[in-house]
């Protein structure tokens, strides 16, 4: 990827996050380019999810700036902020579907909240998104508690995609899925990303996903983004943790069978 001439959609500079005296991030810099799939990896407790939450504004950073679409979120007022929020979708770890609503109603929540569409069109759009994420037509009328974990993730993705966002944030999208389901989810994200021209920010531990769909990988360690680069670059890194991660026994398995 030629990084120089690409538009930066998320720019994080000097980010510092801490809980009490525990510093999660310090002087963290990260760029995400338009149209790429960025995989964020790091050991447990290195603040991958915290980074995601900081970018979407669920965590107030102790210091640093975060720009999305060139705007500093911390300085935006309510209305401008809502407009930015309509341009991204977030898939939380367990889908975070509203438990009192059916799947189709969940998908319609952002449509209902931000736009004034006729019910019929909303139903059609919801049906299309549900089908797009590979859910059965019968899933639309079900409640989240009636779905399996994998189906909840798909439904969560359908909701995240409801407004045709430009950026999608995924928090461990394949965690807890069986290998077949995880591979299908990878393919789904890759397919949607190509069809809709999405920028994907994906927190993951899944080496297969990293390999299959990520254009770039950012490694979080030592409270910052240690390195970013393609899989090939990662494999050449000499930092002990990165070596361990990408050359460990599980990594070799994942890399031995490139699709």
């Amino acid at each position: 990827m030629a990084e120089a001439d690409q538009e930066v959609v998320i720019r994080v500079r000097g980010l510092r996050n801490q809980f009490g005296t525990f510093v999660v991030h310090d002087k963290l810099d990260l760029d995400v380019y338009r149209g790429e799939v960025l995989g964020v990896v790091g050991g447990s407790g290195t603040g991958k999810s915290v980074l995601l939450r900081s970018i979407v504004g669920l965590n107030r950073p102790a210091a640093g700036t975060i720009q999305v679409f060139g705007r500093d979120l911390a300085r935006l007022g309510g209305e401008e902020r809502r407009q930015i929020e309509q341009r991204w979708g977030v898939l939380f770890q367990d889908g975070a579907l509203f438990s009192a609503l059916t799947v189709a109603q969940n998908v319609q929540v952002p449509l209902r909240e931000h736009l004034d569409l006729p019910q019929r069109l909303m139903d059609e759009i919801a049906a299309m998104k549900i089908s797009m994420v590979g859910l059965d037509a019968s899933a639309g009328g079900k409640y989240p508690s009636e779905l399996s974990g994998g189906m909840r993730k798909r439904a969560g993705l359908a909701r995240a995609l409801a407004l045709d966002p430009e950026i999608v944030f995924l928090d461990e999208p394949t965690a807890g899925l069986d290998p077949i389901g995880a591979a299908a989810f990878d393919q789904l994200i890759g397919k949607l990303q190509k069809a809709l021209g999405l920028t994907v920010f994906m927190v993951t531990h899944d080496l297969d996903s990293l390999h299959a769909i990520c254009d770039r990988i950012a490694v979080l360690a030592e409270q910052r983004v240690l390195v970013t680069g393609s899989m090939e670059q990662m494999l050449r890194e000499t930092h002990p943790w990165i070596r361990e991660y990408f050359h460990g026994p599980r990594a070799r398995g994942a890399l031995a069978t490139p699709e």
Partner: protein
Amino acid sequence: MRAGSVKFTESGDETLLQAVGCWDIANARQLDAELAAPARPPGRTLRFDLSGLEALDTAGAWLVHRTVKRLQAEGVAVQLTGGNESQYGLIEQVAANDRPIAAAPPAPNVLLRVVERFGAGTVDAMLEARAFVGFLGLMVQTFLAGLLRPRRIRFTSLVYHMEKVGFNALPIIGLISFLIGVVLAYQGASQLRQFGADIFVVNLIAISVLRELGILLTSIVVAGRSGSAFTAEIGSMKLREEIDAMRTLGIDPIETLVLPRVAALVLTLPLLGFFADMMGLLGGAVMSWAVLDVSPAVFIERLVTTTSAWHFSVGLIKAPFFAVLIGMVSCYEGLQVTGSAESVGQKTTRSVVEAIFLVIVADATFSIFFNIVQV
């Protein structure tokens, strides 16, 4: 925001439909209306021209696909032109996912629903009553087993709940009882004065507060305050599979969660009831002094000479029974939580309503019983 629109032009037998501007979700409402407007194009063939598009997202692609589908169903030959590869790709994607689904669960007709709800409610109530008796048995069994092995009783948990249920409830229960004493004295005095029987206000306050109101109010406040907390606590634990985790670790949730709570209630509710009695009498005494000029000394003298100690005992005898009812209902409902956050709310409401209802039913039963045994 850039706009999107539809342009119809006719040339001979062919209609030209031009998509212009941004066909995205922000413009979907307007585009939907514009596309619906011409009931049926006069031409037999229609060219759908996409060359004027500035942007197309899935919602826009859906509108294109839907329009094409509708026109074709009406017997019009439709031809898509002028789009680029990614736009055609998107439309194809969308077309592949054209599978209508039910958004909301199907709703049967109103009458049927009423009948069905009534039936389901009745069956539910009966099943619940049965399960409830089962739960009581389980609790008693666990309690007796605990007595045989006192080391298994969770004292830390018990004391913790006693503080939350009992000690922390003192201010609110004190205040409510005091005010009820005040109200009784005031209302009673204004009626009794008509007969010149002012002094009987002491009997009125003493009997109503000691026998009924003190303990009843305390139970209702505790049911609302602690019963709801129990249900919500246990319900959330159930939701996060903590209860299942306990079971797999060989920990009995009845022993660890339910018994300490119920026991805390049984131990503290009589104490709270006693406190409520005293505060109610105090409120009555203060008001009697202020309005009726019944001095505290006279009040106490009347109280001691005319009120039998049984009134006081009758009130407090009921306390442990009410405590068991409140504790059992709230813990039972907590364990019934399933699925969603909504369920926690439902069960909590239910637990409070059922607990208060059962307390009042029990109170009425006690009245009849005490009337028969003449105390």
